[in-house]
């Protein structure tokens, strides 16, 4: 059904069953959801009786066997379908996006919002990441969540998440994107609080939702403002007209983009709204890998990349995006230095890497931002899954001996490489990738961002050259810290002596197949994934020799139809940025970043290797001095609690007790009781004395006579 008022789809390319890509996860959700409800009902009966229902007694219950196939199955199908479409798009040289409206979602008067999907190069890349990495993480989850009573519910949520994530990236207009935007927030809420009986976990989910909603406020307002300006909200109309309608750097465009930035800081965990993401680690680890590393949190980057032309038109907003990005990158990296929880380190690392992506899209390197998004999905997904494998193993070991140690605290680990060699190797590969060591994937993407930052600092007409220089330095510092804390994580976890204790160590084991295969796949991608966008020089000088890559900067070319408008604006305003890099071409920059990263790894090795940690349960040493501040995450949560949460709660109580109950309702009661009090006073005249009555009557007569006489 083609809704009214929408352009017919461009004829140059037709995708194959695009709606099915979205619908498959939804179908998975429906099936798994039904199974989950059925399972929960059984479990509830058991809980009421005072125990737990054993789903695995006498063979696997249907509600627990089916999700294993349905959950990853729909993802595989969706991935294959996406792959087919991706390949067909590769050959199509598509320039204009493919848009198709299925029905009129909100349609009244001038406002027409169609339930439409848009396929272009950007959404295709995102879909590949979502379905591909998503599939792997689904497979990993089969092993990881196998014994959980909420197994079908878990897959239902996970499928639903993928559905919303696909809506987010495939929607053809900002409101449709917003459906996905809030939908993934919902799934994040549900999955963080997956073990909802734990108050801390349920609270973490709630916190994520509320903080995200602060960002969503920005998104909504941005949509309203766009509607106000364009009377349109779909990408095709807005982005193609943006250049002609908005004044470069004008207040309207700046406001719109700043509102988008607010939205993005919420979803992508940037300063000042990043606080929910570390807490989000309360969810199952594969969830952290999928939602809080690979896909959902990158929605902000996607948003900026999608609206690249808008940001290109707003230099101030772009500078703020970059600024927030680099600050977040550095800030989160400092916190990651002193965290002891393996997932917390990775969480802050994610925040930090998202900062890099923001820096990328903020300095106009939209492709680089997306590129880093992609490589990050590989290596951070891998890191989380690896951490998941470690935790899984630790948990099993501790569970066997009923030791109530924290399975996530790195101080309790150490020397795990002996027990989990595959995990150890793959995670090292990912660590090298994230640290930005040549030639792993993270090197290329991070390098490009830092390099472009430097380029902006030197651009002829760049608006804030000093600022970008500062950014460049900060970004380097953050990159160095990244290498350092990741090395620390690896050393503490896998090297040195084992600290779990001998009895437990016997139960440490490598992850099952469903878990390590995804690790291996992601490790491959972490190693080679960066090559799709190596610079032309590099390809010729190094790889070209091996004849490995047909073309350099492939991603640039691929995304050109999406970013060309933005680049056009940039070029006309700033000149040719890329040629104004301060340190010449790419080689010097690579040198710098690789050197910095390697230096950090070496430093970490020197400092940490061989240093004997003490298990936390044995001795919980509080760090002192500056380390203590870092350990306590700069006291940001405390700051928010003191200055935002508490005041709001206090105000709410005052509003209720004082304004509502006392002032407003008091007034109402006063009127009522006052009327009755007056009535009571008036009834006092009714003394029952006839003379008094006669007297009052006579007074009345006198008053009337005087009224009438005068």
């Amino acid at each position: 059904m083609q809704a009214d008022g929408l352009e017919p789809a461009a004829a140059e390319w037709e995708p194959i069953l695009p709606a099915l890509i979205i619908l498959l996860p939804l179908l998975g959700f429906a099936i798994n959801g039904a199974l989950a409800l059925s399972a929960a009902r059984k479990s509830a009966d058991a809980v009421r009786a005072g125990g737990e229902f054993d789903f695995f007694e006498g063979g696997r219950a249907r509600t627990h066997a089916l999700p294993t196939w349905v959950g990853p199955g729909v993802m595989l199908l969706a991935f294959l379908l996406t792959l087919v479409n991706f390949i067909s798009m590769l050959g199509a040289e598509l320039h204009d996006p493919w848009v198709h409206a299925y029905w009129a979602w909100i349609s009244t008067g001038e406002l027409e919002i169609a339930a439409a999907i848009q396929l272009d190069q950007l959404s295709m890349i995102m879909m590949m990441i979502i379905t591909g990495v998503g599939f792997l993480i689904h497979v990993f989850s089969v092993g990881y969540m196998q014994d959980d009573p909420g197994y079908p519910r878990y897959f239902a949520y996970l499928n639903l998440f993928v559905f919303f994530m696909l809506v987010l990236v495939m929607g053809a207009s900002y409101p449709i994107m917003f459906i996905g935007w809030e939908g993934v927030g919902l799934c994040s809420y549900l999955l963080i609080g997956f073990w909802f009986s734990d108050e801390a976990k349920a609270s973490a989910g709630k916190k994520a939702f509320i903080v995200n909603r602060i960002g969503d406020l920005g998104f909504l307002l941005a949509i309203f403002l766009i509607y106000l300006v364009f009377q349109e909200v779909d990408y095709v109309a807005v982005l193609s007209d943006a250049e002609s309608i908005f004044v470069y750097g004008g207040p309207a465009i700046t406001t719109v983009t700043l509102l988008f930035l607010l939205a993005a800081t919420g979803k992508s965990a940037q300063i000042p709204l990043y606080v929910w993401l570390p807490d989000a680690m309360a969810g199952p680890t594969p969830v952290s890998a999928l939602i809080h590393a690979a896909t959902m949190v990158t929605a902000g980057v996607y948003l900026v990349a999608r609206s690249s032309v808008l940001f290109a038109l707003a230099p101030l907003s772009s500078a703020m995006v970059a600024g927030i990005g680099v600050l977040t990158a550095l800030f989160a990296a400092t916190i990651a230095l002193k965290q002891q929880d393996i997932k917390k380190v990775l969480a802050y690392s994610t925040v930090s890497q998202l900062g890099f992506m923001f820096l990328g899209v903020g300095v106009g390197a939209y492709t680089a931002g997306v590129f880093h998004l992609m490589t990050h999905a590989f290596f951070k997904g891998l890191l989380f899954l690896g951490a998941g494998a470690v935790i899984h193993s630790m948990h099993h070991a501790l569970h066997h001996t009923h030791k109530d140690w924290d399975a996530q605290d790195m101080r309790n680990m150490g020397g795990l490489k002996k027990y989990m060699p595959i995990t150890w190797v793959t995670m090292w590969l990912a660590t090298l990738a994230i640290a930005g060591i040549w030639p792993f994937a993270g090197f290329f993407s991070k390098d490009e961002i830092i390099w472009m930052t430097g380029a902006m600092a030197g651009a002829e007409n760049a608006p804030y050259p000093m600022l970008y220089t500062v950014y460049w330095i900060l970004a380097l510092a953050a990159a160095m810290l990244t290498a350092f804390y990741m090395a620390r994580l690896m050393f503490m976890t896998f090297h040195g002596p084992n600290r779990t204790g001998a009895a437990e160590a016997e139960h440490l084991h490598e992850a099952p197949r469903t878990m390590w295969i995804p690790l291996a796949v992601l490790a491959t991608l972490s190693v080679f994934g960066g090559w799709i966008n190596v610079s032309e020089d590099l390809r010729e000088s190094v790889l070209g020799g091996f004849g490995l890559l047909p073309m350099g900067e492939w991603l640039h070319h691929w995304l050109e139809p999406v970013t060309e408008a933005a680049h056009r604006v940039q070029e006309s305003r700033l000149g040719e940025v890329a040629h104004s890099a301060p340190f010449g071409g790419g080689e010097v920059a690579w040198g710098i970043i690789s050197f910095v990263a390697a230096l950090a790894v070496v430093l970490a090795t020197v400092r940490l290797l061989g240093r004997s940690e003490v298990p936390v349960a044995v001795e919980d040493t509080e760090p002192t001095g500056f380390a203590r501040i870092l350990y306590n995450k700069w006291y940001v949560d405390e700051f928010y609690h003191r200055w935002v949460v508490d005041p709001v709660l206090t105000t709410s109580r005052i509003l209720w007790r004082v304004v509502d109950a006392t002032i407003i309702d008091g007034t109402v009661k006063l009127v009522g009781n006052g009327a009755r009090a007056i009535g009571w006073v008036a009834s006092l005249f009714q003394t029952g004395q006839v003379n008094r009555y006669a007297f009052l009557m006579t007074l009345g007569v006198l008053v009337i006579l005087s009224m009438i006489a005068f």
Partner: protein
Amino acid sequence: MLNALAYESWALHALIWLPFVGMVHVLWAAEERAKHLALRWSLVVFVLSIGLWWAYDPALGGGYQLVSSRSWIAAWGVNYALGIDGISLFMVLLTTFTTPLAILGAFNYIKKRQKPFYALMLLLEVGVVGVFSATDLFLFYVFFELTLVPMYFIIGIWGGERRIYAAIKFFLYTAVGSLLMLVGILYIYVRGKVLLGVASFAFVDLLQIPLTTGEQMWLFGAFALAFAIKVPLFPFHTWLPDAHVEAPTPGSVVLAAVLLKMGTYGFVRFLLPFFPVAVRHPTVVGIMLALGVIGIIYAAWVAAVQPDAKKLVAYTSVAHMGFVVIGVFALNLNGLQGGLLVMISHGISTGALFLLLGMLYERRHTRAIDEFGGIGRVAPWLATAFVITALTSIGLPGTSGFVGEFLALIGVFEDHPGVGIFATSGVIFAAYYMLPMVQSVFFNALEKPENRAVQDLSRRELIILTPMIALMIVIGVHPTPLLRRTEPSAQMVIDRVWESVQLGEAIIEVDPSTDLGAAETDDPVGTATAADGAE
């Protein structure tokens, strides 16, 4: 098929009077059959009302359809005149949809004095359907007031501890407004008689009356107060939490789902078309928008710290109605459409929330949030239903709650961006009040042994909730059929507000003698000579 049955000619009458017949039947039948009879009658009404969806044809424009009129009080020109347009269509449907569910929800809740209870529920339906389908102002007023009595008794007889206080507060509070509105109604009527020589209460006739700016302002005040109390708009809202907390579940459901809508319906039906000059006035718009926005934020904040779950939901009603008010007083199509959709959505979602809280109350005999915890473990379906409903209530995209709020906000933003910003912040506060409650009730550890015994949804409860949840999602995903039906009527209202810009000014020039001065004074002679003469 509808044509073959001449559905248009009798449908509305049947919808009003069938519940009445049902009421008599219930009173006449045996006590133990009362609930089934009431359910059956209300279902018959609902089934009949479904035909309205097709019988009302938006292609014919936004005017009244299915009209029928008979003289009622000839001496005053009062007619028993019914009809629906796109706006009232959904209000009627909402009423007929909610009533059977509320009755079904009462099955276990109401244990004593069942006959009168169900009779009053049906009487309430008579009144509410009448309110929404009347096209004669007098008839409207009669039905409007008629709804008070059954609700008063429902709260007062079957309510909680402080039921009498709540009932009387509800009654008096709403009566203050509606009686002043009665004065306003009669003023317009008399004005029509004097200026046009037509004694009529028909909406169409009253719309012709050229009222001066001053008169419009005063009348606007009288009408707006009545509806603002009903809505309820901040600061006239304090009756609502009390009424909701004390009312029995089905009472709360109807109160939230339908009765509050009478206020916002009044805004749309009367304030905008009848007093366009006043409504356009910047001060008036400013005040109404401000009250709406304050309602959204203030009610959300107050809701967030309520220890009583039902009271919390009651305050959220205030916040939701704030969205309706700002949508309506955006005075543009998007805003109005959004307001209407919020009304529908709120009717379903808050009705469902009250039903769910009632189910919890039946199980635990408490409404204190602290008393719960971990209910999701023992009543997963109940928890699921509650979470979906709560998410609809806070306006998650893809649910009906979002579409309405989105349109209302976009409408406000078009003309009053500043107001729009504040109003939009309501999305944050919605999460701020709803999620902690959901967490404390359904999540967290299952510690209390009483909570461990909580049963999951019964089949009857499932039957109640399923259609509601289905509607929340269907409307959220595909609201356009609704919007298409309301659009012509909403457009007419908006046109009416703006088209009279010239007309209103012309009147003042032509007829200076009908200025406000005459209306304000109570000097029937209308001159100062009276006072002189007395001296």
